[in-house]
């Protein structure tokens, strides 16, 4: 499990230099649009994974971490941008500092360097899904089922799983093709052996009967049983009959070829026609052709990706994942092309199998021609066989098949000229030879039978291997598919239940009957949700945009919970709940606090109210939240926080920069007054445009706190809590006498006047103002935990307290 401690960012995205202290706690960053909040998320993600999600994936063509990760003014200084992230690895109970530079995103410097820490960090780097932006949320909800499946698959990184399944399937298909060829070879050799033996079926008894008949002629012992090691010509003097022909058998071989060659024009006719038709379709549709060519090309490229450089064009990419994602996206766009591709390859495989059977008839006849002195014809036959066999590998890819189109449309079998006549001549020549003596007949019969039996056995062994390999591939593919389906179905079932529970928790009684249904079907994932008991509908059918936002984040949380369980320790939520209304946001805080107690969330928002609500709800504190006031290209985010503001003012005054000190004090007071007004329930004069001036806000806060301390004093007295009563009265006295409180209206005047006045102060004049406000602001904070005080509950408050509860004053008087 990992928690973030601190981060130091330099020259990265919109940030020049920034330090944040996350304290291993949930942390909120508030700031207007363009103030640099997402830059922090980018930096964390980059430090952990070497990637920046916003620069990868759909719609990011042309964007790279190397070129667009640095601050815009540092693009030409790749060594300048870097992130230093200190994290705590709870499993190892160790803190570690990671430093990663934009110039070498794959390399991290880790202190302390330790194998276990490096392994844990490598594990974390595998999980870029810890970040979620509003863009991703909408991609889960407002999409078609097939797209949703893709988006969730991307979140879960299911593309790797899909690719593995596809690779297992490809392996299976290749082994099916290999089996088809092996099977065809068995049939061809079996047929050749049967033809020679003149037996109708391949049975050992029939085989031995034919063989023993010849062995008897030669006075050789009969063979009783056909074993693996049995040699049919055993006992013959070596070489006898090997160079000669068995006339009767040779005549049958010639006849078999005559029959086949006469029909050779129809060889694989159906498959060839289908291929030609598909190829014509491709030629008629240039876009299909382009898709198919691209598919073939991209598939090749995808198989060759092994570094962050395109194997097809050498273009550099940020990383291999980005490149693979790009190539896969291209493949997904050509489904029609894929169907044609599959058909072409299937028909090609069947033609190959038929070729194996046909070419199996040629070698015996080539030998006959050779023995009969017809060397040219023998060479011609062997040449034809080779030409036909050359076609087999040309039928294994679309690109190669396309090149065969002209050949397939014509006489692709390309029977040599005068072949039939020459073959007939050979037949005549053989027939004209005198009949062999019984002895020669028997000798040549046995030697030929042995050769053909050996060939048949070889083919059987190859086929056995092919059958086994095909079966293993099928088991592996089927098992992977089964496991995949089981895991995903279980995951989706659990996710839908959690999703429904989270969404009900987020919306309270308003949606107490809410349920969701995730239905995975053939590559898509439907999501239907209940709309106020009226039935199940797609999320966008009736639910508002805000509700859909809520659904998105609930679905994400449900997925993360099921994927990582207790290990879900860090999540970066970049402006994800902007449309959820204020009432539901408290529930959202509660959801995170109750269901994800072990998870550190880094939450950015451009909504000030939401930022305040996170503090009020106790999801974050003053110390674990920060405000980015503004941004400019030279400085990056202008940060407001409780921490360090007084030091910043002192430093400015030490340099005589009263205007800078004045601006910092003003920013801090505006921030603190606004937050205190919210936390204490102050009532400044209402403004429809929400632009409250500092003097209005601070005056109302002072009025409110005086009233609250008054109530606390009365209540303490009624409960006879002398210590609390004394403290409350001291606070009342302080507020009545401190210079800051007394001169708020004078000093905290509207911005234009105020700035002018402070800017014109001398250092000696302004220091008392700073000291007075510092003393006043300290009055609103706990001395122990440093948090700003607040009331609970927010309506009709019963106590005034701080985050650590060391300050906890009852506001309710004891009833007599």
């Amino acid at each position: 499990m990992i928690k973030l401690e601190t981060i130091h960012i330099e020259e990265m995205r919109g940030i020049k230099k920034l330090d944040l202290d996350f304290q291993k706690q949930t942390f909120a960053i508030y700031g207007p649009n363009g103030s640099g909040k997402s830059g922090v998320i980018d930096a964390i993600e980059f430090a952990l994974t070497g990637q920046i999600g916003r620069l990868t994936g759909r719609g990011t063509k042309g964007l790279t971490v190397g070129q667009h990760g640095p601050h815009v003014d540092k693009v030409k200084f790749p060594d300048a941008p870097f992130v230093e992230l200190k994290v705590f690895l709870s499993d190892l109970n160790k803190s570690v500092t990671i430093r990663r530079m934009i110039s070498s995103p794959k390399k991290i410097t880790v202190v302390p360097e330790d194998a276990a820490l490096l392994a844990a960090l490598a594990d974390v780097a595998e999980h870029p899904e810890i970040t979620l932006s509003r863009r991703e949320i909408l991609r889960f909800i407002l999409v078609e089922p097939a797209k949703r499946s893709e988006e969730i698959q991307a979140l879960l990184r299911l593309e790797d799983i899909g690719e593995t399944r596809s690779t297992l399937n490809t392996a299976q298909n290749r082994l099916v093709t290999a089996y088809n060829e092996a099977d065809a070879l068995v049939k061809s050799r079996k047929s050749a052996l049967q033809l020679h033996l003149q037996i109708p079926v391949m049975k050992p008894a029939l085989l031995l009967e034919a063989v023993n008949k010849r062995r008897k002629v030669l006075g050789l012992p009969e063979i009783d049983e056909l074993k693996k090691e049995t040699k049919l010509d055993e006992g013959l003097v070596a070489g006898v009959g090997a160079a000669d022909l068995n006339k009767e058998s040779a005549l049958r071989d010639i006849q078999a070829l005559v029959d086949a060659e006469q029909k050779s024009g129809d060889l694989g006719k159906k498959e060839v026609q289908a291929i030609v038709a598909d190829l014509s379709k491709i030629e008629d549709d240039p876009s299909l052709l382009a898709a198919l060519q691209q598919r073939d090309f991209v598939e090749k490229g995808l198989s060759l990706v092994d570094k962050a450089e395109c194997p097809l064009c050498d273009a550099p990419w940020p990383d291999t994942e980005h490149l693979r994602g790009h190539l896969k996206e291209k493949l997904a766009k050509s489904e029609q092309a894929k169907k044609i591709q599959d058909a072409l390859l299937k028909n090609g495989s069947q033609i190959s199998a038929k070729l194996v059977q046909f070419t199996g008839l040629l070698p015996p006849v080539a030998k006959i021609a050779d023995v009969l002195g017809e060397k040219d014809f023998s060479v011609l036959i062997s040449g034809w066989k080779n030409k036909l066999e050359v076609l087999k590998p040309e039928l294994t890819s679309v690109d190669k098949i396309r090149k065969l189109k002209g050949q397939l449309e014509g006489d692709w079998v390309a029977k040599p000229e005068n072949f039939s006549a020459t073959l007939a001549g050979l037949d005549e020549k053989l027939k004209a030879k005198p009949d062999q003596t019984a002895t020669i007949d028997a000798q040549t019969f046995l030697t030929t039978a042995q050769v053909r039996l050996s060939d048949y056995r070889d083919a059987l062994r190859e086929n056995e291997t092919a059958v086994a390999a095909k079966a293993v591939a099928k088991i592996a593919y089927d098992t992977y598919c089964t496991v995949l389906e089981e895991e995903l179905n279980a995951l989706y079932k659990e996710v839908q239940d959690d999703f429904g529970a989270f969404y009900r928790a987020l919306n309270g009684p308003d949606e107490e009957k809410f349920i969701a249904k995730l239905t995975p079907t053939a590559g898509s994932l439907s999501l239907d949700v209940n709309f106020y008991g009226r039935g199940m509908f797609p999320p966008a059918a009736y639910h508002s945009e805000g509700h859909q936002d809520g659904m998105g984040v609930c679905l994400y949380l449900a997925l993360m919970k099921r994927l990582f369980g207790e290990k879900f320790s860090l999540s970066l939520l970049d402006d994800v709940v902007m449309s959820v209304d204020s009432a539901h946001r408290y529930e959202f805080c509660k959801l995170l606090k109750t269901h994800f107690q072990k998870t550190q969330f880094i939450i950015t928002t451009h909504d000030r109210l939401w930022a305040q609500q996170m503090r009020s709800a106790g999801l974050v504190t003053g110390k674990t939240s920060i405000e980015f006031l503004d941004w400019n290209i030279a400085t990056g985010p202008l940060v407001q926080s409780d921490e360090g503001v007084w030091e910043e003012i002192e430093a400015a005054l030490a340099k005589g920069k009263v205007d800078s000190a004045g601006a910092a004090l003003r920013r801090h007071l505006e921030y603190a007054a606004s937050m205190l007004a919210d936390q204490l329930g102050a009532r400044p004069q209402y403004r429809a445009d929400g632009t409250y001036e500092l003097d209005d806000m601070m005056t109302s806060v002072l009025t409110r706190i005086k009233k609250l301390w008054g109530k606390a004093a009365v209540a303490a007295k009624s409960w006879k809590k002398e210590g609390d009563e004394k403290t409350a009265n001291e606070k009342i006295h302080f507020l009545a006498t401190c210079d800051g409180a007394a001169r708020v209206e004078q000093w905290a005047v509207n911005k234009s006047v105020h700035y002018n006045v402070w800017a014109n102060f001398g250092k000696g004049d302004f220091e008392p103002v700073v000291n007075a406000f510092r003393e006043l602001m300290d009055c609103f904070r706990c001395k122990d935990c440093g948090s700003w005080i607040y009331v609970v509950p927010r309506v009709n408050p019963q106590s005034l307290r701080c985050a650590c509860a060391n300050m906890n004053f009852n506001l309710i008087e004891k009833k007599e």
Partner: protein
Amino acid sequence: MKTLFQQIGEKFLSRLAEAKEIDEKKIAQLRVLFTDGKRLKAEELVKIFSGADADQIK
């Protein structure tokens, strides 16, 4: 922290081992392919699937 991909890979291999339909040697070779972090290639699978079983008499 295993990814879903790793979880499915592990379950797949243990399911194959339980079923005992595939030779242990092949499963060991598959385990190497599934855990080395490299992209799976069809030709590597074909080679494993086509290999002789450890206890096969040749």
